[in-house]
């Protein structure tokens, strides 16, 4: 089970308190009707699904109830950092320097 540091509650909490929300930073188009079928399919269904660092959304469902983003490695499951919803995608290199990895 993961221990996930909620950026609002500011403490690590067990995974079962959270709900996974899929890949982060997939922005809905400002003009959805103007999208081509291919672009809409990409937004709806296509995912990067990387073997490595993954930016993903979580909701602290049984805690503060709020959404935030986490950067987790999909092989080691290590969470290198979390940040509040709406904040820009952090630079992975900075995290890795701070975490010494």
């Amino acid at each position: 089970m993961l221990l996930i540091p909620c950026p609002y509650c500011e403490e690590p909490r067990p995974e079962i308190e959270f709900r996974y929300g899929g890949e982060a930073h997939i922005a809905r188009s400002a003009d959805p009707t103007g999208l081509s079928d291919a672009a809409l399919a990409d937004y709806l269904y296509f995912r990067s699904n990387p073997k490595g660092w993954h930016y993903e959304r979580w909701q602290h469902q049984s805690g503060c109830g709020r959404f935030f983003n986490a950067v987790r490695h999909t092989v080691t499951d290590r969470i290198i950092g979390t940040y509040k919803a709406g904040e820009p995608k952090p630079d992975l290199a900075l995290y890795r320097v701070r975490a010494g990895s």
Partner: protein
Amino acid sequence: MRFSFGNLLRQARAGHTGWGPQWRDAEPKAAYDVVIIGAGGHGLATAYYLAAEHGICNIAVLEKSWLGGGNTGRNTTIIRSNYLCEESEALYEHAMKLWETLSDTLNYNVMYSPRGVLMLAHNEHDIRSLKRHIHANRLAGIDNEWLTAAQAQAFCPILNIDADLRYPVLGAALQHRGGVARHDAVAWGYARAASELGVDIIQNCEVTAIRRGTDGAVEAVETSRGRIAAKKIGVVAAGHTSVVMAMAGLRMPLESFPLQALVSEPVKPVMPCVVMSNAIHAYMSQSDKGELVIGAGTDAYVSYAQAGGLHIATHTLEAICELFPVTRRLKMLRNWGGIVDVTPDRSPIIGLTPVPGLFVNCGWGTGGFKATPGSGHVFAATLAHGVPHPIAAPFTLDRFRTGRLIDEAAAAAVSH
């Protein structure tokens, strides 16, 4: 050497010293007509049918680790074809018909055992959903019948149908022709038969890049054992499909999750069939060794760790102990995870890609084993002719653009 009664007698007289290796552990050649990435059941079946039915024998099957060591060796070996949508019924029933004669076809005992698959209903919604499946299956000529709780218990005597269960058993759908097969034997049997037809099975050979020519078509793969030229490439990489397809510059509508399974210590035969429950999320059968084989769920998040969270397995074991009180004192011997690639509509993707010469067979999610022969058969035809086999035709990658999804979410055994 063929397996036959005569050869068995001859080998018995010679002290069983004459059995050779069952397939060649080949060295890579410089070029092949078709390169298949992934030597699991689906990839090996594809190679076998390409050689046996389409006369294309200059094939390499590349495997980054050992043959059948991915999801082929990690699943719970359940076979059934009681799907809801017509497209899926055709696909899985195609596989079912191949299962019925597979041991003869391959001259290899895959231990296909149609012992019946029982799917339990625990509430009014389950009853209606399962009955809908039964009617849909009947219309398609696929066997599936409704049992009352008492009839279900008569079919599987260790099933607990007490009315005071938290999730009581209210009835069940039974597919008699469903059952299990020996997963390793399926990989070995296809490998042996394909190897005899000249297919090179190359283990410990990880693909690191896909090279494309000036016209955009595939030319070669770079591997940990050197460059291998290929006229056509078939990607059958299950949970790692997104990673391999990214080498050709393609994004996929896939997410990879660890799906867990467990086996108990071996016991005498207690479980005559397969029992599945979608609602409380547990399924169980008994292997010929006597272990109870239990399927658990997937982790909620994308992961390539072949393990999975303990709370997922615990959740399933709680349900198993309730449904089968006889298991309560059993020890679990092993648990493990396999990385399953899940599509948004829970149906596979079989066919062409935007890259010329590159074909993909993926997205089988939590239920690919049962489809192994059918998947290989239709994918081989697709690869050989460059157009989708009629049964594979609805399962295109393009359906996510056109919107012609095949929504099997309700039919999947494992909740996603």
